[in-house]
């Protein structure tokens, strides 16, 4: 419950941003929230279940392409198109998960990378449908209670989605299923011996992280009024994986902050240098060497303080998992 309160509190604080930021910075923060949310969802897969993927941008991009194509090629209402985008990603994740979860570690990493490259290749080559390298421009934003074509208006939509999805992730992570993900990462032999279908748990983590990526992929497409092959690239997958590592496995908030921060850093640096991949690599090395527990390890473990504080309280009493 504590984590949910923090999410709502942080959301309220962020709601003042339109009053203090310029248009440019507000746009940058909107995207930062989107990538932070993407990384938070990925934490369920990479942090909780320890399934490091280099292909999850595929689900971000597929949802964006699905939405953009539905609107621009088929004239479908943007809200319905958004649903189609998410369903497309979700459907592909459901189809691919049973295959992907059969392998582990490096093989899983490469198979997800290969999968991502297939989607990227498809978007790049199928020029007549996807626009190829040019992507799909002029994707209209949906109508809403307030004007979404206005930067502030779109920021608030994004903030609401981020708060809502983060709350869902937070509750999910503390549930029986969330704890079973931690069990799978700890010992899948033990988990099977206790009666858990380990493959299906791994598949669930994969699909849930894909759905979260899909929601943010749609938001990102609406924000940019554009979707391009970059949204399917392995570089984006790597950036998100790095966000989870730098943020701290399984803390949820750490990957969120790191995912947001990395996006801001990337945007600021890209004006002056083309060396983003090098910066990413350096950041990775620095974080692994100097901060192996990630950002979240800087906060003297919330877990321990939690146990300490709640001695005598009924529910959190035995928890190292409850936050």
């Amino acid at each position, binding site marked *: 419950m504590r984590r949910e309160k923090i999410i709502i509190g942080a959301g309220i604080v962020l709601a003042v941003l339109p009053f203090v930021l310029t248009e440019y910075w507000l746009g940058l923060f909107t995207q930062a929230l989107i990538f932070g949310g993407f990384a938070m969802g990925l934490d369920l897969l990479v942090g909780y279940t320890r399934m490091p993927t280099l292909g999850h941008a595929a689900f971000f991009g597929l949802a964006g392409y699905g939405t953009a194509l539905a609107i621009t090629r088929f004239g479908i209402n943007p809200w319905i198109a958004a649903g189609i985008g998410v369903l497309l990603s979700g459907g592909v994740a459901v189809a691919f998960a049973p295959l992907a979860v059969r392998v582990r570690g490096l093989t899983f990493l490469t198979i997800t990378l290969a999968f991502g490259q297939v989607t990227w290749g498809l978007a790049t080559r199928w020029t007549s449908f996807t626009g190829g390298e040019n992507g799909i421009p002029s994707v209209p934003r949906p109508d809403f209670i307030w004007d979404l074509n206005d930067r502030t208006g779109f920021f608030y939509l994004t903030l609401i989605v981020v708060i809502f999805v983060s709350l869902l992730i937070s509750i999910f992570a*503390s549930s*029986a299923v969330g704890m079973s993900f931690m069990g799978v990462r700890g010992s899948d*032999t033990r988990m099977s011996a206790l009666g858990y279908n380990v493959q299906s748990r791994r598949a669930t983590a994969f699909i849930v992280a894909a759905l979260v990526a899909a929601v943010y992929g749609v938001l990102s497409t609406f924000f940019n009024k554009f979707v391009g092959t970059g949204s399917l690239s392995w570089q984006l997958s790597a950036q998100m994986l790095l966000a989870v590592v730098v943020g701290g496995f399984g803390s949820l908030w750490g990957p969120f902050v790191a995912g947001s921060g990395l996006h801001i850093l990337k945007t600021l640096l890209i004006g002056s240098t083309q060396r983003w991949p090098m910066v990413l690599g350096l950041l990775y090395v620095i974080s692994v060497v100097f901060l192996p527990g990630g950002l979240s390890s800087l906060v003297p473990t919330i877990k321990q303080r939690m146990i300490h504080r709640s001695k005598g309280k009924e529910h959190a009493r035995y928890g190292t998992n409850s936050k």
Partner: protein
Amino acid sequence: MVQTANSRYALSIENLTVQFGGLLALQDVDIVVPPGSRYGILGPNGAGKTTLFNVISGFVKPTKGRVFLHDADISKKPPHKRVQYGLARTFQITTLFAELSVLENILMAALVQAGTSQVFWKPVHNDKVAVSIAESQLHDLGLMHLAGKAVNELAYGEQRLLEIAVALASNPSVLLLDEPTAGLSTAEIKAVVRLVTNLPKDLTIIMIEHDLDVIFDVSEYLSVLHGGQAIAHGPADEIRHDERVKEVYLGES
């Protein structure tokens, strides 16, 4: 004929052979375990004892042979399905969830028993049924004082007890214990023996054990494995005086 014979046993293993490449880890092993008995598996290192447990619990596919739990042929079931037939096991090498608390370790098993392991919409600590199964398990074993501790804070002896507690939270009718006292001090061994002897009488317990005092203390029946073959079966008292067993095993130690 096979069917009627099986109904008399909590567990029966027929004609079991396991081959790892060129190595025959188990060869034509037959074992029957009466319900509610304390059954010991004895044998030197590398005899195939753990492999036998791995086959019973479904982690190793046998080259040949079948496994029955009560009346059911479970030979083809994956490990997680065998839990539904009443099987639980511990591991020779402790495989607890190091980052979780003691209660959460047991909760992982209790959730399956409560039927709420699929719940994703509320915090696991609010699951009253599962939490109470887990707590009463800890309580029954006198381990309640450890509930809030993280597993990596526990002494090794406590971890071995927790290993058994977690398996018991699966509410098994047949419990497999793989060397539960290995590496423990005399006092810790006593604690494990006390825990095992105080378990409900209708629970069938099959225990691999190296310590001869422990195995003769706890078990009513024994099978002796040697080089993948079951060289003797019978009541503990008879095995103790069996010449062949003395030769290959008791003589060695």
